[in-house]
């Protein structure tokens, strides 16, 4: 099983500015001034091994879209943020437009950042493709159809050439989707959102974005930990700091890196992936949050170590 991250940003797209790119290049040139970077290989090694992630690369700015690859013929995605455009280009490059595919998409909820990529989901324009959109959310079909409509978008949903189906799921029930076993989990978020636990080939991924957890609510924390139990990977909404999420941004529907660690430790999960990055956080800030989260896991560890990473557009985690 693999998790391929096409969009990792929360709330709205956050592309790098020209100034930010310039600052990265200037910093890299200064740091590499005496490093004899006279070949592509040396320069690439310098970029990935000497520079920090924030200095040499970027976490990216696309909104939520994660592909779960389980080895079957069909595609399985979580959410339709702007990252789905990159995914669809990749799928088309692999198969070409003449070979129909089936795409299964688990949608957490219908807030705009999680569906805004659909109008640019190229497979929807191609006859023969089959697209199945799943959610526990009762408004999925209305939201998707409403988005592909004048005056918001010039291509009406009804004119899309692919076969598109909407499937309403129920929380806690187990479904066979794209060859994986999928269960859903209701999460605390404005207008509701749903997490998904995806199991296949003895591996499990939990996709839990746009979810607020109340640390004082033992029952809710236990319910979340049970959903995360022994997962190989938990993709977790870590948009805010803990202080923000229980003070000025309480009831805004998002969680923190600290709660991600606590829940994953309770759940005996193997890996925590910080996801749904706050758009105002630049690459250096996310680097720092990741380092702090790794440290927090170390100082609070009571059992087996929990691996911690921060999602970036283009990241692949093989399980």
């Amino acid at each position, binding site marked *: 099983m693999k998790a391929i991250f096409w969009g990792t940003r929360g709330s709205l797209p956050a592309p790098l500015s020209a100034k930010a790119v310039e600052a990265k290049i200037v910093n890299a040139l200064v740091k590499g001034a005496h490093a004899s970077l006279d070949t592509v290989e040396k320069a690439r090694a310098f970029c990935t091994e000497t520079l920090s992630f924030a200095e040499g690369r970027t976490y990216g700015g696309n909104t939520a879209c994660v592909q779960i690859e389980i080895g079957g013929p069909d595609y399985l995605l979580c959410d339709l943020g702007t990252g789905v455009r990159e995914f669809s280009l990749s799928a088309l490059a692999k198969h070409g437009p003449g070979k129909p595919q089936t795409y299964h998409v688990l949608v957490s909820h219908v807030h705009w950042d999680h569906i805004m990529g659909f109008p640019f989901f190229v497979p929807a324009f191609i006859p023969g493709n089959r697209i199945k959109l799943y959610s526990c959310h009762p408004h999925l079909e209305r939201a998707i159809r409403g988005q592909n409509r004048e005056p918001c978008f010039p291509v009406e949903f009804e004119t899309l050439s692919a076969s598109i189906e909407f499937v309403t799921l129920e929380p806690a029930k187990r479904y066979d989707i794209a060859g994986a076993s999928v269960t859903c989990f209701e999460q605390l978020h404005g207008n509701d959102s749903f997490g998904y636990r995806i199991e296949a080939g003895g591996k499990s991924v939990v996709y839990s974005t746009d979810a607020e957890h109340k640390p004082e609510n033992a029952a809710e924390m236990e319910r979340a930990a049970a959903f995360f139990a022994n997962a190989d990977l938990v993709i977790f909404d870590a948009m805010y700091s803990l202080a923000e999420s*229980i003070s000025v941004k309480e009831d805004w529907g998002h969680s923190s890196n600290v709660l991600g660690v*606590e829940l994953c430790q309770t759940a005996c999960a193997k890996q925590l992936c910080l996801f749904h990055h706050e758009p105002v956080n630049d690459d250096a800030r996310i680097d720092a949050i990741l380092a702090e*989260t790794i440290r*927090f896991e170390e*100082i609070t560890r009571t059992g087996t170590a929990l691996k911690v990473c921060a999602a970036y557009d283009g990241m692949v985690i093989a399980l």
Partner: protein
Amino acid sequence: MAWSERQVGDAVLAEARGRIDLSNADAFRDDLSAAMAKAKTAVVLDLSGVDYISSAGLRSLMIVFKAAKAEGKTLALAALQPLLTEIFTISRFNLVFPVFDTVRAAFGKVAPGAAPP
């Protein structure tokens, strides 16, 4: 978690000891609220004996801090162990609360009229 407190002028010096987590966060909140009710100006919370605080414990601090602020009172934290300082930094609680290296420094700032303990 163990708790003790004493009046120092218009303020209260409280001391928590042990581990504060989900199992005792409510009791911690209640003890701290009661101490705040007794204080006219501020509670200085000596955390030198606390070796761990979880998110639930931090939330209890936040609840009392907000309520105190609404009444014009202050909650000051003092003498955090290095590990607690790290937890406060990572969770950004260091940006919310007044945190002091020593109990004496906390009193000097939030209750200068009180005799230093």
